[in-house]
C-alpha cells in the first residue's frame, strides 16, 4: 500500500510540471467533450424526447420520465425499421469520397503548378487561397444566391447560351452536385497549402538524382514526389474525411432546413432530430454515436493501412 503511495508521489514529483501544462486543455475537454459524450451515450440507450425530459416551467419542476430501453434505438436504426439510415449513410459516404477526392486531386494539381518557378507566383497563391478566408456560412449563402433558380447567375449564363434554366437546389441530384461544388470550392485551398508545404519539404537533391538517372517527369512524379508527399497526404486525407463527413454548414444552409430531403447527410439529419418538430433526443444521440463509431473504425483501419504501406517499403 505505502509503496503505491510512494510511487504515486515520485511519479507526481517528476511529472507534475507536464501535467500542470496540459491541465487546462484536459479540463476543457473533459467538461465540454467528455461529459457530454458520456451523457450522449446514455441518452442513446433511453427513449428521451421533448415530452419526457425534466424541465422547469415557471415555478413548477417536472421530473424526467424517460426510461432505459437498452439497445432498442440502435436496433431500430440498424435493422432499417427507422427507414432512413442506410440511404443517408450511402449518400454521406459518396459525398465524403467525392469531396475528398476532388479536394486532394485539385489541391495536388495546383500545388504542383505553384511549386514551379512561375511569374506572379505569390499573387496566384493569394488568389487561390482566398476561399479559405471566406467563412463557410457566408460562402454557402453566396453560392445559394448564385444557384437561385430565377435570379441566379448560373441560370442567367445558361439563358444567354440559349439553354433552359436548371433547378440547382430543388432537384435532388442537382442539389447533391451543387453541394459538392460548394464544398470543393471551400476545401481545396487547405489541401493545396498543405501539399505545397509537403512538396517544399522534399529535398531537391532527390529530384536531381532521379534526373541524372534519366527518369522521365512522370517517373519522377511517381517515384519521388508521391512517396515524398506520403506523410502529408496521410494526415490531410484523414482530416479531410473527418471534416467532410461531419460537414454541417454547407448541407444545412445550402439545402435549407425545411422538409426532409434526400441530400441530407447523417450529421444534419441527427441535428434535425434533436431540434425540429418533436425533439427526439434519444434518436439524435443514437445517430451521433453511430457517426462517431464509423469514423473511429475508419481512422483505425486507415492508420493501420498507412503503417502497413510504410512497412512494405
Amino acid at each position, binding site marked *: 500500500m505505502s509503496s503505491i503511495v510512494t510511487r504515486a508521489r515520485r*511519479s507526481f514529483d517528476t511529472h507534475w*510540471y*507536464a*501535467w500542470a*501544462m*496540459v491541465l*487546462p*486543455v*484536459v479540463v*476543457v*475537454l473533459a467538461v*465540454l*467533450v467528455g*461529459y*457530454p*459524450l458520456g*451523457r*450522449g451515450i446514455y*441518452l442513446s440507450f433511453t427513449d428521451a424526447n421533448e415530452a419526457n425530459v425534466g424541465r422547469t416551467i415557471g415555478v413548477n419542476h417536472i421530473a424526467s420520465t424517460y426510461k432505459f430501453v437498452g439497445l432498442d434505438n440502435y436496433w431500430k436504426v440498424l435493422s432499417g425499421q427507422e427507414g432512413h439510415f442506410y440511404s443517408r449513410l450511402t449518400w454521406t459516404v459518396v459525398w465524403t469520397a467525392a469531396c475528398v477526392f476532388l479536394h486532394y486531386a485539385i489541391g495536388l494539381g*495546383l500545388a504542383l503548378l505553384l511549386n514551379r518557378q*512561375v*511569374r506572379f507566383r505569390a499573387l*496566384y497563391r493569394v488568389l487561390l487561397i*482566398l476561399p*479559405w*478566408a*471566406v*467563412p463557410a*456560412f457566408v460562402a454557402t*449563402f*453566396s453560392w445559394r*444566391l448564385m444557384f437561385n433558380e*430565377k*435570379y*441566379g*447567375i448560373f441560370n*442567367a449564363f445558361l439563358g444567354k447560351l440559349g439553354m433552359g434554366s436548371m433547378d440547382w437546389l430543388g432537384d435532388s441530384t442537382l442539389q447533391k452536385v451543387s453541394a459538392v461544388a460548394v464544398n470543393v*470550392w471551400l476545401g481545396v485551398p487547405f489541401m493545396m*497549402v*498543405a501539399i505545397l*508545404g509537403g512538396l*517544399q*519539404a522534399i529535398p531537391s537533391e532527390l529530384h536531381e538524382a532521379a534526373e541524372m538517372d534519366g527518369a522521365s517527369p512522370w517517373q519522377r512524379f511517381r517515384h519521388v514526389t508521391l512517396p515524398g508527399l506520403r*506523410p*502529408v497526404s496521410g*494526415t490531410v486525407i484523414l482530416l479531410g474525411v473527418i*471534416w467532410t463527413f*461531419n460537414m*454541417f*454548414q454547407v448541407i444545412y444552409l445550402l439545402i435549407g432546413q*425545411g422538409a426532409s430531403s434526400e441530400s441530407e447527410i447523417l*450529421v444534419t439529419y*441527427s441535428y434535425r432530430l*434533436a431540434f425540429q418538430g418533436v425533439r427526439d433526443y434519444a434518436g*439524435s444521440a443514437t*445517430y*451521433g*454515436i453511430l457517426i*462517431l463509431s464509423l469514423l473511429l473504425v475508419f*481512422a483505425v483501419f486507415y492508420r493501420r493501412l498507412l503503417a502497413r504501406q510504410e512497412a512494405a517499403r
Partner: protein
Amino acid sequence: MSTPKPRPRGTRSRGASAALHTVLIAASAVSVFPVLFIVFLSLRGRDGWQEPTRFVGFDLSNYRHILGQTKFLTWFGNSLVVALGATVIGVLISASAGYAVSRMRFPGHRPLMWTFLVVQMFPMAVLIVPLYNILGQLELLDSYGGLILTYCSVSVPFCAWMLKGYFDSIPTEIDEAGRVDGLTPFGTFWRLIMPLARPGLAVTGFYSFITAWGEVAFASQFMSSEEHYTLAVGLQTFVGQQKAEWGLMTAAAVLITVPAGAIFFLAQRHLVAGLTAGGTKG
C-alpha cells in the same frame, strides 16, 4: 522525330509556360469569382440581385440599411468578442499542452495525443444536446462565456496537435540552453519557444478564429436573444422562410468577410511553413 534538346532544370518551353499560366488563371478565376460577384451585387441596391448580369444602379443603400436599421453592428461585436476570446484562450492552452506533449514524457502522453485526434471526429450533433444542458446548469446559455468555451473545445484538439508538431521541429538544444541559463520549463516555453513558434501560432490562431467566426450550429441554439446573436445566426434572419432580402445578405456577407480576410492575409505568409511542420508529423 528528334529527341527534344535537354533543357537546364527549372526552365520550360514557351508553350508549357502559356499552358501553366492558363491553368493558374482559370483556377484563380474560379476561386475569386464568387467573392467578386457578391461584392458586385452588394453595390447594386436592394433589388439589384434580381438582375445579376446588368451593370446599372450602383449605390450603397444595402450597406446603409444593414448598418443603420438592423442589429448588424451588435452581432458583429458579439462575433468579434466570441471569436477573439476563443482564439486567445484556445491558442494559449493548446500551446502549453502541445509543448508538454512535445518535450516531456509523462504518463498519459500517448492517450492525450489520441484524444486530440479522436475529439476531432466528434460530430457536434452528439455533443450539442448535453452541452446545452450543461451550459444551462452553469447559467452560461445565451452568454459570451458559454460560446467561447464551446468554441475552445472545438478548436483546441486540432491546435494542440498542430502545435505539438511545430514544437517538434524546433531543436531541443534551445530548451537546453534556456535551462542552463536558469529558466524554468515554463519560462523556456514562454520566453524562448513561443517567439520561435510564431508561424505555428499564426496558423492555429487563424484556424481558431475562422472556426469561431463561421460556426453555425452551436450559435444557432445557444444564443437565443437577438441582442446576443452572432453573425452566423443573424445572417440567417435576412434569408429565411418568410423573406428573402438577398440584397442585404450580400452587403452583410462582404462586411463579415473583411475581418476574416484581414486576419487571413496577416497569417497567410506563415500558413505554408506552419502547416508543413505541424501536419507532417501526425
